[in-house]
């Protein structure tokens, strides 16, 4: 009767098992430092252009929309404040994580999935290496380090995009915009603005690795794993964001 639930429950169990081993391996030898730096380059530097572009246009559009709403109250001067708060608290972390999820979770799932179906994962185990230690943990560490950094960049570029709109379309001065934006931010905003991408990094890296390592069924399976990784990581980012925001608003 409950056979329908077997598969998803097993998947959740396997995911937690993978996550537990990946996190435990952070503190266990051997450490693959070169793999960590390689992944930081792929995930961090590789995602920089798309993250910066997304942040810039989000900030610019945000400034236009906010200015339109604020004009009704004669408070266009507050645009910088709203742009900064919205970006640092919500849009920066979530949009950056979604963009990175689309790019990285899919990349990880397809890479590991291809290794799985061509027996490279089995070969790795047969030749004395724990695939979780060698493949999952470096990707987890790298994502946890670079996603908050990418968010900082996205926040800044976004606020800068808002500044350009404020300067050329809303006729605000630079000092007015930046002072307004700077004073609006509190330490708690920045703390949660960075805690979110750190938490989302676990989702992006581990979901990508989980679906990659669970791949079956040849090249078709790799495609399926890639799609599932992107969809699942994006959905989980939205869900987790709700819970983290709930904690934030209750403080």
């Amino acid at each position, binding site marked *: 009767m409950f056979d329908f639930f077997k598969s998803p429950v097993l998947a959740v169990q396997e995911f937690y098992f993978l996550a537990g081993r990946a996190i435990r391996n952070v503190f266990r030898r051997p450490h693959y430092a070169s793999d960590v730096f390689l992944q930081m380059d792929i995930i961090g530097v590789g995602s920089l252009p798309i993250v910066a572009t997304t942040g810039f246009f989000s900030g610019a559009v945000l400034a236009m929309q906010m200015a339109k709403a604020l004009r009704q109250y004669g408070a266009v001067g507050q645009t910088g404040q709203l742009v900064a708060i919205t970006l640092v608290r919500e849009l920066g972390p979530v949009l950056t994580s979604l963009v990175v999820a689309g790019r990285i979770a899919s990349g990880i799932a397809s890479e590991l999935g291809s290794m799985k179906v061509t027996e490279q994962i089995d070969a790795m185990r*047969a030749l*004395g290496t*724990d695939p979780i230690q060698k493949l999952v943990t470096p990707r987890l560490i790298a994502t946890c380090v670079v996603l908050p950094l990418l968010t900082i960049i996205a926040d800044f570029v976004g606020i800068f995009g808002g500044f350009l709109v404020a300067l050329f379309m809303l006729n605000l001065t630079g000092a007015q915009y930046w002072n307004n934006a700077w004073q609006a931010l509190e330490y708690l905003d920045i703390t949660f603005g960075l805690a979110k991408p750190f938490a989302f990094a676990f989702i992006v890296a581990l979901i990508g690795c989980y679906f990659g390592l669970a791949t079956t069924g040849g090249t078709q399976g790799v495609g399926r794993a890639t799609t599932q990784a992107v969809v699942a990581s994006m959905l989980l980012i939205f869900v987790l964001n709700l819970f983290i925001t709930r904690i934030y608003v209750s403080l």
Partner: protein
Amino acid sequence: MTDEQEQSVLRFDDVSVGFGDVEALRDLSFEMRAGETCIIFGAAGSGKTVLLKTALGLLRPDAGSVSVFGCDITGLPEQELFQIRSQIGVLFQEGGLFDSLTIEENVGYPLLNQPSLRCPPEQVRPRVEEALRFVELEHTLEKFPSELSGGMRRRVGIARAVVTDPPLVLYDSPTAGLDPITAYTIIALIVKERDVKNTTTVMVTHRYQDGHFLANFRYDPRTDRLEPSAASGAGETRTRFMVLREGRLVFEGTRAELEASNDPYVSKFVRRE
């Protein structure tokens, strides 16, 4: 028979392995002793690869036990299995080479990563070159697997399997998808490895010719060729044949017994002249 030959190298006791509702191996029992060659025939999906992966501890049996070199590996944690696996060479069906690493890095991988081997870095390159010379691919050190043909990738796979001089080597369908000439080259290398290093060999295949060469030919170091074992004067190879059908062992015996079998399924793996 010497003590060394008496030693049990691989033993399956009532092993069953399943994936969901599908049982890939059912109540499988057999034992291999040092220096033996075991050829396991079976059609696609008969459980050949699962058997090898179970022997390596890559898959855990649902029932029964697996012993390698006298050690029960059935419940061993992954970290302890590395010690056992360092004594087993394996050639995966498609070679299982790491496509992001060069041939040199691929072949040197077990030397650098097997925790129990800890090969000094300065010894890695000479040993890799020696293993690649064995398969006559010493000129491919800097290449990537994607730059090699299918047959060359299998040969690199053999080099990686034997670079640590393991006493037990497992070959998973080493000639699948290869043309007859390349297949012969691969089989010749397997016979050479077996006879030069006196390794215990397990090969799963669906090709009669592969088993025929392993059972009836020996490597002659003087001519660097395979010679019929009767003619080489080295005596008969200690070869056993097994046939798997839907995860069950339906035949186990010598070549003569295999050829005398009247079972229609078993007969598929025997070439009738």
